[in-house]
């Protein structure tokens, strides 16, 4: 540790921009970005599963509102949605007097809500597409076993749909990571916010933004690697048998 520390100090000495201080900024930004993206994806998936099932319902009063929701949230820029939640949250009557104001007056939570609603809309469509593409034979077999709709959904349709949705969902995760950069616009010090701060402080756009671009690139490759591993494992039955 001692050795690592001295090596690190030697590396940083003589570098005016990447001091321990600015690297700390980047680190905090990385933590904020990952928290924001991870939480919104997690809540987004939880919301998307029932929504995707409802989206495929035969009843119009269930199907249409969900379709309207995904259409609006997929058809407008995330930045607009972020502004609407960030500036609009104060219009809920009494929120400023309630105990929730402690969390809502920070930008993190409005951003989390906007991101969650956005990713839930995309994920709903991804899951809906996967559910719709379930092989007819699987459903017929489940029916022949006398499964109720509920049981069939839980045991047959959803497990196979999740697997088929995996590649598209991997893209959505990367998309969300990249889209989260707009959080810096509403005063959140995420990775991009940290890069902007470093740029403004030292007037060094190349160093500040290329460094952060490399961090995003590493994160993107990491996500791609994880999803490729998952696909290999969960979609093994769909691959042609190797020699």
């Amino acid at each position, binding site marked *: 540790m001692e050795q690592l520390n001295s090596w690190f100090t030697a590396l940083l000495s003589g570098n005016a921009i990447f001091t321990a201080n600015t690297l700390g900024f980047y680190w905090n930004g990385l933590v904020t970005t990952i928290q924001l993206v991870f939480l919104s994806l997690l809540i987004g998936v939880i919301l998307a599963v029932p929504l995707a099932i409802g989206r495929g319902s035969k009843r119009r009063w269930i199907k249409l509102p969900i379709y309207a929701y995904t259409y609006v949230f997929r058809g407008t820029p995330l930045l*607009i949605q972020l502004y609407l939640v960030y500036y609009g949250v104060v219009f809920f009557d009494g929120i400023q007097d309630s105990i929730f104001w402690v969390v809502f007056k920070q930008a993190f939570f409005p951003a989390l809500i906007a991101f969650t609603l956005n990713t839930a809309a995309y994920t709903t469509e991804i899951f809906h597409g996967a559910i719709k593409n379930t092989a007819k034979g699987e459903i017929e077999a489940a029916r022949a076993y006398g499964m109720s709709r509920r049981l069939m959904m839980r045991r047959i349709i959803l497990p196979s749909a999740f697997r088929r949705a995996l590649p598209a969902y991997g893209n959505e995760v990367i998309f969300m990571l990249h889209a989260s950069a707009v959080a810096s616009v509403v005063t959140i010090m995420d990775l*991009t916010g940290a890069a902007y701060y470093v740029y403004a402080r030292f007037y060094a756009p190349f160093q500040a933004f290329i460094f*952060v671009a490399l961090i995003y690139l590493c994160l993107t490759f990491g996500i791609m690697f994880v999803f490729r591993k998952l696909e290999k494992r969960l979609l093994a039955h769909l691959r042609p048998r190797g020699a």
Partner: protein
Amino acid sequence: MIDLQGYGPRLLDGALVTFELAVLSLILAVILGLLTASAKLSRNRFVHGIGTLYTTLIRGVPDLVLMMLLFYGGQIGINMLTDQLYYAFDIDIFINVNAFVAGVITIGLIFGAYMGETFRGAFQAVEEGQMEAARAYGMSGWLAFRRVRFPLMMRHALPGIGNNWMVLLKTTALVSIIGLTDMVRVAAEATKATHEPFLFMLPVAVIYLLIATLSEWGFARLTKRYNVGFGESSEWNN
């Protein structure tokens, strides 16, 4: 009628900026995409490598970071270049990076990478037999490309181009962050001045939805056109 508190005309101007930006970037992206696709399909390993590097780098970094890098870095880069010109050849010029041009170049550059992937897949989907037939008819390389390979490729590329266009349209909102006065920026300024987010953000959202809906219809028509001869009702398929 909604009272936009005098921001109405500016909002419309902004909408026009958004639309122009989107269309110009799309044109640039399609050109870059065709170039990238041919680079990635090239047998030359160096050219192939450049194409792969471009698409991988661009698709791994957020749009906003690339935009900031090109916009804030672009001015400094160009200044350094013109300084060198001045010292070396005594040529004194000053180029000011225009936010609109920077926006078009950045968005075009980003979506050129996505278009490249779309076109590559589409070119690969064209059967070689079609090109062999064209050559057998004595068509020159360019004529065969224009009359056979390109229209056949478009049939496969159109769904991807449509998707990219929808994403591109929404990406234009980011230029408001680097200081270009598109409709999002007008709405954001109006919101800060009047504290009426819904009054200004909702109409902007509606305009985005409108453009998206209209282009969906347009792409459906184009798809129909490029699918002539491939549809189920076609006499050739009986």
